[in-house]
């Protein structure tokens, strides 16, 4: 059963459409990552779902109850949504414990109901309850904000770019704590982010919002391996795009400068653009033999440590191609190497 169901939701600001008929459903107990570049409307979608903005048309059902619809706008406080804003937004005048129990009835507030339990859930010691929020690091504030959102046992938790303001090390740690807490409570959650790695690694499902439209809702693997458009392919990760044509004898193959490659999904056109992920392209050990390997010259190497980015010029295609290799064995500039492609590639009709 789905916990959140959104149908043809539209919203515009001052005549400028921001959401065009968004359809979305999230299954109970799963985490949906809502991914989109800035300006795609993802924050607006979240704010409409939370009830901070009114939708122009469409419906929203939470836990089977319609909260948005023709003539219906249930106010935020009656929607039972746990909202974790960017940077936490802890109440500066209240202690950590008082922040956590803020959404509970008065008696439970007095008794500091479940404060220790919730602090433990988000991986903070119980002693933190008496601290002022100013004494916490950014990651700890995010965890308290999650504990505060979870305290009234909401049917749905919304997280608005919760990790974007944290530095790299803190981000990984906080992500871990947040996903563990969400999994432990079995909460249904929607995580808004513009960071594709975050969306792919955290989401049970990833929904991509592109210029106000949901263009793809799929498993993280599918969104990365088979993105529905070229633009999306480049947004979700690095992409090598080369021209090619569909094999006239076998419609499941494409011919391009990297040879004859299997495609993940059949396309109607014959002239296509072929999308290959850089890590699919491998350097073949010996370039002297091997007819199916593509010959290339190394033009530039940028070394990052764990891996290296290698700029190549293929001898047949005459265009630059960037691939990624492991850091311990990268080729030298000027070296001639042979390449092969592993796995399926994606073909898009050429425009």
């Amino acid at each position: 059963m789905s916990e959140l169901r959104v149908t043809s939701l539209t919203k515009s600001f001052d005549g400028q459409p921001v959401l065009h008929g968004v359809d979305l459903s999230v299954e109970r107990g799963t985490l949906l990552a809502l991914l989109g570049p800035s300006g795609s409307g993802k924050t607006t979608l979240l704010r409409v779902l939370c009830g901070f903005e009114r939708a122009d048309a469409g419906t929203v059902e939470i836990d089977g109850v319609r909260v948005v619809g023709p003539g219906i706008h249930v106010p935020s406080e009656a929607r039972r949504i746990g909202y974790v804003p960017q940077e936490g937004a802890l109440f500066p005048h209240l202690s950590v414990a008082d922040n956590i129990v803020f959404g509970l009835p008065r008696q439970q507030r007095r008794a500091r109901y479940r404060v220790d339990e919730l602090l433990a859930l988000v991986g903070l010691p119980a002693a933190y309850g008496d601290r002022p929020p100013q004494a916490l690091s950014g990651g700890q504030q995010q965890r308290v904000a999650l504990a505060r959102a979870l305290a009234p046992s909401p049917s749905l938790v919304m997280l608005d770019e919760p990790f974007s303001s944290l530095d790299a090390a803190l981000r990984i740690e906080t992500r871990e704590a947040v996903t563990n807490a969400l999994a432990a409570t079995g909460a249904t959650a929607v995580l808004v982010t513009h960071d594709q790695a975050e969306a792919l690694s955290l989401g049970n499902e990833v929904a991509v919002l592109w210029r106000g439209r949901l263009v793809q809702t799929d498993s993280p693997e599918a969104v990365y391996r088979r993105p529905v458009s070229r633009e999306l392919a480049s947004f979700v990760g690095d992409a090598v795009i080369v021209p090619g044509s569909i094999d006239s004898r076998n419609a499941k193959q494409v011919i391009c400068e990297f040879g004859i490659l299997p495609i993940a999904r059949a396309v109607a056109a014959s002239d296509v653009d072929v999308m290959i992920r850089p890590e699919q392209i491998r350097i073949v050990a010996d370039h002297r033999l091997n007819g199916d390997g593509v010959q290339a010259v190394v033009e530039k190497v940028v070394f990052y440590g764990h891996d290296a980015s290698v700029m190549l010029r293929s001898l047949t295609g005459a265009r630059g191609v960037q691939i990624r290799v492991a850091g311990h064995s990268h080729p030298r500039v000027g070296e001639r190497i042979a390449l092969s492609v592993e796995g399926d590639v994606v073909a898009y009709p050429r425009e």
Partner: protein
Amino acid sequence: MSDVVKAVGVSALPEPRSRKRAPRGLLVAAGLCALLVLMPLAFTVYRAVTFGWDDAIELIFRPLVGELLINTLSITVSATLVSAVVGTAAAWFIERTRLPGRRLWAALTVAPLAMPAFITSYAWVSLSLDLQDFAGALLVISTAYFPLVYLPVAAALRGMDPALEESARSLGCGRVGVFVRVVLPQLRPALLGGMLLVALGVLSEFGAFTLLRFRTFTTQIYAEYRTSFDSSGASVFACILIAMCLFCLALEMRVRGGARYERVDRGVRRAALRYELGVWRWAVVGAFVVLAIVTLGVPIGMIGFWLTQSGAAAITPAEVSPELLLESTLSSIGYGCAAAVVTTLACVPLAFLLVRFPSRIATTFERIVFLAQGLPSLVVALAIVSLAVHALRPLYQSAELLVVAYAILFLPLALVTVRAAFTQAQPRLEETARSLGLSWRETVQRVLLPLAGPGLGAGATMVFISVVTELNSTLLLSPSGTRTLATQVWIDTSTLAFAAAAPYAALLVGISLAASIALFTLLGRSAVAGRAAVLKEGLQAGSPPDK
């Protein structure tokens, strides 16, 4: 306002590497500045102490003192409460609702600050003599002082993170719940700071109470001064008044408590939430119209009315002489400019010391200067008079002494602005300029002055406005024969020659408004709001920091 506060906030955290030793000359200059401010307070206390215990008790335990105490306390408490309610309501409607014409109402709500209370009281008294006594005093004082609550509360509302209110909504709080449990607690420091400013203003108000025939400690101090010129009795009353001011300061500090209100996060905020007023919209607009009429319309209207009347139409007939009008205008502007320059220059060494060489002694000097802010200007003026009579006879009733008195009174005002200005001119920039081959002199000319200049100008303008609208020390200290616009209004109004007072009042309000508008257009909202920020900052500098 937020800009000024922000800049000041930065200076409160000196970079550890700038802990160099201050040049001795700078320390001495800053110390002299602090000493100058300390002098009147020390002298008043000294006078009161030497008065003799028995005489003091005889003077204090009189029915008259009881009446003064009741009057002073009742007007202070009620005017502070009225200002708190009106100021907070105005701020909330302007900052948090989609009120039609918000910018206009915001400007009209701040504008009464440019009009001193003795001008407002002149307008009301000349409208009807029934407006005297408590009710009239409450009306006049509240309309003159409520912007001091409005400004900090509006700034706090503007600066509040909307995510806090949204979080509260998502946690099940309704609109009223959000206001009571989230908004109001966070307004507390701003609201209390504003109320403190009103209370201190009311305690030291003198001109308005005299015109309204409402007796308080200040009017009594002046009366004592008039009867015996160099009166220790006045010093005793002054000490009671100082004690009341200190009590207010302590009360505010205690109620504000140790709670922390600074924002938790550092990210970019969205604009604050605004509520729809719906059908109530026009009722609220109506309330703002009434407020504008009461605070601005009546005073300006009455001045306009008396301008058109011949001198004989007033209760006391008196004609205006154009020569006297010109003379008093010139002397008002002259004193304003002289005091602006002297005050700004006087606080440059201390401001520079605070920004560049932060140390315990620099902070001590700063607190001493801000102490003056808590002292009623009448008390300061009185102390300077006595001091001049006793120790500096040749300076008594000289123009120089009056300028020094203005400098003592308005040093805190200038100090905060000038310090903020120097904070903007970071040493890094000067170092960069020096590395690019500029000499010391060129660096000052091409880097320090362009960066700090606007702040210095703003400080000087604020002092100018304050001097032009100042009455107490001008009355006590101006050289005999010198007339300023403020003293002319006061003389004519206290003899009920309303028509004669009108041109002086019109010119005074005009100059003050023009300077305020110049300040506003030159430096934006932060500048005008800065006056309140400065006062508040000054008061809090004396209290222990929040952390």
